[in-house]
């Protein structure tokens, strides 16, 4: 494999005042890899994700991303407009609560088409076709393209958010508990969808979750976080089936078996 990493993280840490949220995180992510970050509440995983995704400047360390034009570049060394452009072209971010990312008073089609329009699309027909296409891909009824998200169920809103995020064909997608808060059967179908899309589009992704079943299904690699530290990292099935660290063993043994 001669291709370099898509993302390189060095000595990344963030503190809020005296509280250390995450500390000394380091890894490389290669194209097509899905990294799961698991931890319980307070582990620092969400802070980490925000630092990685350009949303929160870390107090220490670097996040380097392989920019198309300039190669590995410090994400926080970019100017704000450059970073904003990156975040709506090469990157995507799926939040736990789709209502945080959707415009609730704009139609589904308008939501999906928004990023296309911000990136310069000026043909209504083409924008609408693109939106329809993506609604199909996330298995939403395309006849609802003009309906507002407020009329959708939670699972449908999450699918809409995924469509809105993937419409620009990003290379790297960050997800924060993408199936959290949804009914079990809805979660299951959504995970199937994500798994399919990640595979089909060759996406790289970093998924933060507390749910080990989600990482087993979606992630190639796993990072276990506790009190802001990455206590164990490796191949997903290896970390879950042969956990070395005490905390990982605790986590794995705590999962309820139905």
């Amino acid at each position, binding site marked *: 494999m001669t291709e370099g990493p898509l993302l390189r993280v060095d000595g990344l840490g963030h503190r809020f005042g005296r509280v250390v949220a995450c500390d000394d995180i380091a890894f490389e992510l290669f194209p097509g890899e899905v990294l799961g970050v698991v931890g319980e509440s307070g582990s620092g995983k969400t802070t980490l994700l925000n630092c990685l995704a350009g949303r929160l400047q870390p107090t220490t360390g670097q996040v380097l991303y392989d920019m198309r034009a300039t190669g590995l570049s410090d994400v926080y060394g970019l100017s704000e407009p450059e970073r904003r452009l990156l975040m709506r072209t090469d990157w995507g971010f799926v939040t736990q609560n789709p209502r945080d990312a959707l415009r609730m008073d704009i139609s589904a089609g308008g939501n999906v088409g928004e990023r296309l329009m911000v990136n310069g699309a000026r043909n209504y027909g083409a924008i609408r076709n693109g939106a329809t296409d993506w609604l199909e891909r996330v298995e939403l009824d395309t006849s609802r393209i003009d309906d507002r998200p407020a009329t959708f169920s939670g699972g449908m809103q999450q699918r809409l958010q995924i469509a809105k995020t993937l419409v620009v064909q990003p290379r790297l997608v960050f997800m924060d508990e993408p199936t959290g808060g949804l009914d079990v059967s809805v979660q299951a179908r959504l995970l199937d969808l994500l798994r399919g899309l990640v595979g089909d589009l060759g996406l790289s992704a970093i998924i933060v979750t507390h749910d080990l079943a989600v990482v087993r299904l979606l992630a190639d690699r796993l990072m276990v976080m506790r009190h802001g530290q990455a206590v164990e990292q490796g191949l997903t099935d290896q970390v879950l089936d*042969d956990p070395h660290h005490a905390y990982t063993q605790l986590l794995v043994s705590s999962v309820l078996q139905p």
Partner: protein
Amino acid sequence: MTQMIRLEDLAKTFVLHLQGRTELPVFENLDLTVEQGECLALTGPSGAGKSTLLRSLCGNYLPDRGRALIRHDGEMLDLVAAPPRAILTARRLTLGYVSQFLRVIPRIPTVDIVAEPAVTLGMERDAARTKAAALLSRLNIGAELHALAPATFSGGEQQRVNVARGFIVNYPILLLDEPTASLDAANRDVVVDLILEARERGAAIVGIFHDEAVRKRVADRTFDLLPQQAAA
């Protein structure tokens, strides 16, 4: 003969932090080689570490020391030191693994579960499904079951789905963990035939076969694992 697997000074001890840091040594100073076209049977009493060794050979378990080299893409790849993406590529292209338990990705039809490894390698989906169906039929899983998810299948049926999934691609290395357990005589014979065919085409095979008759038919040699002393 080309060396396909080489284990050097391999050691594995489980540390159970939740049980007062109990240490369970499995093996140490383990050296082993397997050539192309050779079938090696791991033997030894229950708990001796046969499954552990097999899982270490596909990266599912991580040894503490030593090297676990497999021939992948023309080079020897050390599974102990390799990054996750290298191990995943090796599993896609080189390593076939038939385990005792089918950890199913739910809601996927049986024929697609079996076809998946071939599709991942670039085979056209319909062609892969056809091949999968043929293999399932050979293993006496009727066509009416192909479209169903295997969650409700019997133990023996699930085992045969596992086997089919391991044999749909001509892997250079095959790891088989009790492939004939839960199978009746007729199906056992089918699996033995599959193993022999694989050996014939040059696959290096490492397997655990509790059934002595099966072992005698497929294995060229055996490797005995002795139980280690548990830490006091």
